[in-house]
């Protein structure tokens, strides 16, 4: 450790609040140690924002959790130092660390829904965290109100006694930020604070963080896999890869003149930075143009042979999917309770008259914020909820008038990919059983489950031994591929993909989209993408449909919408979309 001292002295002149030198962290697992961080050196200058970017598993979270001693029990600091204002963070006793956290260091976490305690009111939680201050309760309460007001919660006085579930996700994240900043910390650590939020909320939260940081004058460590966000917000950028810092420097330099090949590729993968519309996106390991082979003997291959002529003639006839004036409402009150309270409309109108068509081999994107009703439309197509009125025609048949049995048969031609890749896989089943299940359910011909599973894994580019794994052993990107394999197994005519890129970093996102795109070309599958990620819509969707509050506000060719948005809401969405270049 002695050889580090000179370095620390040298860097102290720059006035860094946090200096991390040659930090190495390992995890003890059954059968040995796995490296989490390798020789990481990072400085956080006083009053500046440092962004840490990298894909999942790159060690960015390990870094901040090591600084705050919030690591899992099996983590071991193998080498290096981490100091804050000259005091060693790694050797602090739990009691000393406790004094530091929430006072000098404050944190904001990824999911605002789970970071606040659901059984206590916001008032209780916000006054409780001021326990170190020796001031009367009324004063603490007033400070909480002021803090809420500062982060833009309307009527803070009235809303203070409310509970977390009575706030929206964006508001909860504002409250978390208010709580973190109430102590006026020297360092704010934000761990993917906008990942769980919609694009337009993301912009608002980033603006808020930037404002508050300047106002309080604290330093900030901002961890994200979203390049655009880091480019917009941060003064310095640290790029991490496999537990290593591959590049760091002022954000402008890193984004405009990347030195390391990883950073270059990472930037090249970001669909927001690709000016030309392209259905094939570059990924970390390729330019996205390679072809995937569909193994002979699989059910898909047998469909491929038949599919060729069908996709040529299909275009002229009626659309594959035709939704007409679809309305869906959910009861908010029982019928009797509504009658008694005189509520004439005890329903939540989730979808208010949506009409759309999807042609064979086409990609349609439905774009909207959460609560816009886009997922409800998707679920209606697959019969997962009951529309109130309207019609859904698939291949010319009215789905809503079919018997449950007949309806079930149509599900063979429609596959759905769900939002959460891991929790949409049955947890006690092996991957091989999961991806071949559609074939079993629909009684389709295949020679053996194991064989078919291997062919499907090959198509989606997963190693064959994954057949014996369970869902919880997969990363988000791998689980997403399993989702694609399962959607493809029965060779559907339409894939409904709900947020197919949520939580994925740009490279994996590109791989999944390329995969879907090629299968679309080969098999003539129509894809309905439901998303709030406009950057990918611009590249992959033929047509785009914008939804807001259960209504379609605008629809048309994707390029037309992006070039010349007609509706005010569309323009607002496009403006909120974060561009990757540093401002």
């Amino acid at each position: 450790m002695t050889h580090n001292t000179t370095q620390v002295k040298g860097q102290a002149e720059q006035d860094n609040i946090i200096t991390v030198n040659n930090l190495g962290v390992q995890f003890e697992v059954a059968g040995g140690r796995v490296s989490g961080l390798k020789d990481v050196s990072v400085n956080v200058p006083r009053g500046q924002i440092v962004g840490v970017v990298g894909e999942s598993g790159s060690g960015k979270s390990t870094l901040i959790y090591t600084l705050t001693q919030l690591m899992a029990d099996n983590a071991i600091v193998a080498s290096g130092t981490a100091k804050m204002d000259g005091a060693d963070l790694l050797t602090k006793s739990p009691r000393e660390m406790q004094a530091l956290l929430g006072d000098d260091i404050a944190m904001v976490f990824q999911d605002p829904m789970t970071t606040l305690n659901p059984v206590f009111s916001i008032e209780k939680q916000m006054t409780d965290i001021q326990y170190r201050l020796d001031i009367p309760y009324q004063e603490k309460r007033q400070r909480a109100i002021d803090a809420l007001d500062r982060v833009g919660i309307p009527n803070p006085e009235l809303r203070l006694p409310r509970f977390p579930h009575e706030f929206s996700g964006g508001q909860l994240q504002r409250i978390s930020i208010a709580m973190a900043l109430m102590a006026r910390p020297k360092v704010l650590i934000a761990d993917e604070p906008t990942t769980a939020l919609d694009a337009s909320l993301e912009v608002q939260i980033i603006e808020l963080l930037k404002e508050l940081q300047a106002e309080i004058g604290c330093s900030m460590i901002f961890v994200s896999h979203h390049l655009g966000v880091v480019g917009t917000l941060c003064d310095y950028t640290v790029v991490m890869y496999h537990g290593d810092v591959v590049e760091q420097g002022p954000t402008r330099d890193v984004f405009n003149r990347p030195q390391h090949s990883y950073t270059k590729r990472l930037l090249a993968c970001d669909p927001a930075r690709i000016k030309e519309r392209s259905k094939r996106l570059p990924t970390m390991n390729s330019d996205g143009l390679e072809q995937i082979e569909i193994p002979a003997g699989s059910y898909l291959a047998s469909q491929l042979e038949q599919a060729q002529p069908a996709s040529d003639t299909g275009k002229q006839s009626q659309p594959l999917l035709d939704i007409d004036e679809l309305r869906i409402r959910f009861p908010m009150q029982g019928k009797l309770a509504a009658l008694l309270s005189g509520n004439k409309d005890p329903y939540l109108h989730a979808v208010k008259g949506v009409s759309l068509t999807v042609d064979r081999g086409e990609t349609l994107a439905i774009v909207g914020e959460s609560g816009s009703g886009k997922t409800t439309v998707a679920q209606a197509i697959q019969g997962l909820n009951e529309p109130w009125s309207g019609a859904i025609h698939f291949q010319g048949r009215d789905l809503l008038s079919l018997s449950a049995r007949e309806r079930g048969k149509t599900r063979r031609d429609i596959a759905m990919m769900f939002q959460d890749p891991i929790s949409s896989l049955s947890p006690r089943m092996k991957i091989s059983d999961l991806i071949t299940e559609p074939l079993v359910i629909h009684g389709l011909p295949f020679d053996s489950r194991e064989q078919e599973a291997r062919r499907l894994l090959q198509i989606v580019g997963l190693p064959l031994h994954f057949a014996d794994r369970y869902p919880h052993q997969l990363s988000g990107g791998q689980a997403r591929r399993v989702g694609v394999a399962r959607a493809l197994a029965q060779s559907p005519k339409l894939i409904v993909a709900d947020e197919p890129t949520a939580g994925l970093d740009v490279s994996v996102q590109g791989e999944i989209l390329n995969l879907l795109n090629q299968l679309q070309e080969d098999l003539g599958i129509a894809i309905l993408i439901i998303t709030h990620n406009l950057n990918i819509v611009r590249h992959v969707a033929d047509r785009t449909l914008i939804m807001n509050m259960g209504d379609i506000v605008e629809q048309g060719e994707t390029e037309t919408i992006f070039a010349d948005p007609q509706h005010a809401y569309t323009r607002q969405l496009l403006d909120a979309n974060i561009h990757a270049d540093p401002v």
Partner: protein
Amino acid sequence: MNQLTQTGDKQTPEATQPLNENSTLKVLLDTLRRLTRQPLGLLGLILVCSVIFSALFAGVIAPYDPVALDILNRLQPPSAEHWLGTDQLGRDTFSRVLYGGQIALQVALSSIALALGFGLILGLLAGFGPRWLDNIILTLFDVVRSFPTIIFALAVVTLTGPSIGTIVLVVVVTSIPIYGRVVRTQTQALAQQEFILAERAMNASMPRILFRHMLPNVIGQLLILASMDIPIVITIEAGLSFLGLGIQPPTPSWGSIINDGYSFIRNTPWPIIAGGLPLIITTLGFTFLGESLRDIFDPKLRKDV
């Protein structure tokens, strides 16, 4: 790290060979193999196996007839002739404990298996079925639970007469709601999860969702509950036998051995110790076994994958 990569490599050749379909035997052997790797699981397995073995072969192992009286040698402490001493009528306690194990296991295993099966099915239906079904099943559960077990047993015995069958019936009826409620709550929570929605989107039938996707996720908790219930059931049997509603004397059961012992506790503690020891061994054995089985059935808790 080295070891990690090694195990990773081992999987690959295995996966490239054609895997035969999972036969029941293979799963059973696999479970046994995993069980013996955990110290507590192995201990549980040994304890449970020895209890079952001694009950099955009671006739061979037992040195005396369990009902043969020998008034002259009553209330003897353990000796070379009588390993666990004798009771108030001079009967050999060790032989009685062995034969008592037969009764205990018959009652415990059969009633818990039945209660678990019915509870599982009713709980799944209540949790995933239509709301009216849920209401009916829950009402039934509440009605059953509102009877004290002993009063209910009295009523049943009055109608059918005392026998092992009566005890099993009473235990099954009164424990179904316990299992049913656990399963129902779990099922309701699972029904909200995205993977169930995904199965519905694939057109999976209701039985398929219930038995292939819900059941493996609730069975773990049930196994624990069941293994901890086995000693409770044995005590219920003892209690009912004490009231004269269960096993009739002179047939030995662990419960009646302990109850007999209470009357003579001032003379000798040995009958109580002799009746209590197998109860403790059985309880520990089934609890360890149950916990290890849960770990094995839940892939998330598996440490060796």
